[in-house]
């Protein structure tokens, strides 16, 4: 009989990027308000499986513990989310932990999400603030626009939208919702708009905006409730206009 005072965890582990994954189960005493991270910390202190076998501690990543950094993103009971806000009492047991499936595995629950960072670099997801000359103060941004930009700026590059996207796989180079949304954010900014064309052209190649299949799972799983599908349509609009511009005005 499962003890209600116990937490049962089933974890998919992998020792090295090139070795095969395997499953291990752990039993932990129940603690009030425990989350998945605190459970992983408990395992770290006493890494013994349910069968009593002493093993290496499970590797995972975390940082802020308040769902703003995105580093503890993993598959919990089959769906992608942050481990820090996954409260144990709200989860059916056994709690199944798997690393994200769309990124290369480093070890256990730790994955290499560099692809997202590379994509942000490709689309110049920043605003130029200085150079060899002073570009001066930026114009005042209307409050409504600021509020909209704030929503988009909440993206923490956690990768939930990409993990859940049927179009985003390990074998292709689809950029995915988070990147398109950042293009929108920086194009919205009056100073950022100076690089608008470069950003749009960066998402007009293979793996770019036109590859989106509109399954719209991204917006469903986004922990920050970012209007990703609106961003995709908006970038669709901007790139369509850019295409017409390239065809007829250049």
């Amino acid at each position: 009989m499962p003890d209600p005072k116990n937490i049962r965890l089933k974890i998919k582990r992998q020792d090295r990027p090139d070795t095969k994954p395997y499953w291990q189960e752990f039993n932990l005493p129940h603690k009030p308000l425990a989350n998945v991270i605190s459970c992983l910390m408990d395992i770290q202190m006493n890494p013994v499986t349910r069968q009593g076998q002493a093993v290496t501690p499970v590797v995972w990543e975390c940082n802020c513990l308040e769902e703003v950094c995105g580093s503890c993103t993993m598959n919990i009971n089959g769906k992608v989310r942050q481990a820090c806000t996954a409260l144990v009492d709200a989860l059916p047991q056994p709690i199944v932990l798997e690393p994200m499936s769309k990124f290369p595995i480093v070890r256990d629950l730790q994955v290499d999400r560099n692809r997202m960072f590379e994509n942000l670099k490709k689309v110049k997801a920043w605003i130029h603030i200085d150079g060899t000359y002073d570009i001066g103060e930026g114009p005042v941004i209307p409050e409504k626009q600021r509020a909209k930009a704030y929503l988009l700026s909440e993206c923490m590059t956690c990768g939930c939208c990409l993990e859940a996207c049927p179009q985003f796989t390990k074998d292709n180079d689809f950029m995915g919702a988070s990147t398109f949304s950042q293009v929108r954010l920086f194009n919205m900014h009056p100073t950022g708009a100076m690089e608008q064309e470069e950003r749009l052209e960066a998402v007009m190649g293979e793996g770019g905006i036109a590859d989106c299949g509109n399954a719209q799972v991204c917006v469903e799983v986004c922990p920050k409730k970012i209007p990703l599908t609106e961003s995709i349509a908006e970038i669709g609009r901007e790139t369509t206009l850019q295409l017409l511009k390239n065809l007829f005005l250049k």
Partner: protein
Amino acid sequence: MGSISKGQVHFLLLKIHSLTGLVPIGLFLTFHLLVNSLRTVGVLPYQWSIDVINNLPFLIWIEIFFIYIPLLFHSFMGIYITQVAKLNAIRYRYPRNWMYVLQRLTGAVVFVFLIYHMGTTVAPKIWNGHHLFEAAPFLIDVMNQEFATWTGRIIYLVGILSATFHFANGLWAFCISWGIIVGPRAQRNASIVFMLFGGALTVLGFATVLEFSLHPVDVVPTFKGAS
């Protein structure tokens, strides 16, 4: 014309894939179902419509450039698009994710259905030299046979439903891809409007199937004395 980089060719091809689904393929589907539903109005208007279409000047060129080439392009791009994806609607059960799966599934069904449909209509029509005058009696006879059995009826019902769904849902995706519809509420409303439109097309198609199944036509030449 213009400056399109190598990377943008991929972008352009996907955009054209989206566009060809609407113009000319979607437009043709609407026209095709609408004209064929004349069968429910009466045999004569139906028979005349077929003869008129088959006597359009430069018909074969119209067919090649406005139907066959766009259709083949749309099909092969569609196969490519489906292959780079990894379906996950079992894990992430959201309505739009199911629509995404259905869009790919219906595309495949329509592709197979069209091979069958053209194999039983257009191919024998051209093969037997009935592609100019008096195409109607020949084609009506073919349709009589198609709808004589339940197998034939089911093939057409599935084919029509797949095509209308694929078009209605694809119209929605087209509007997003081209940035015509942007906001979440606009996307939702557009989806409802397009589905109603798809429903209307389905009714047209199903009514024609029903009419043929219930009342097969006595095949007579459109003009007396013609064979």
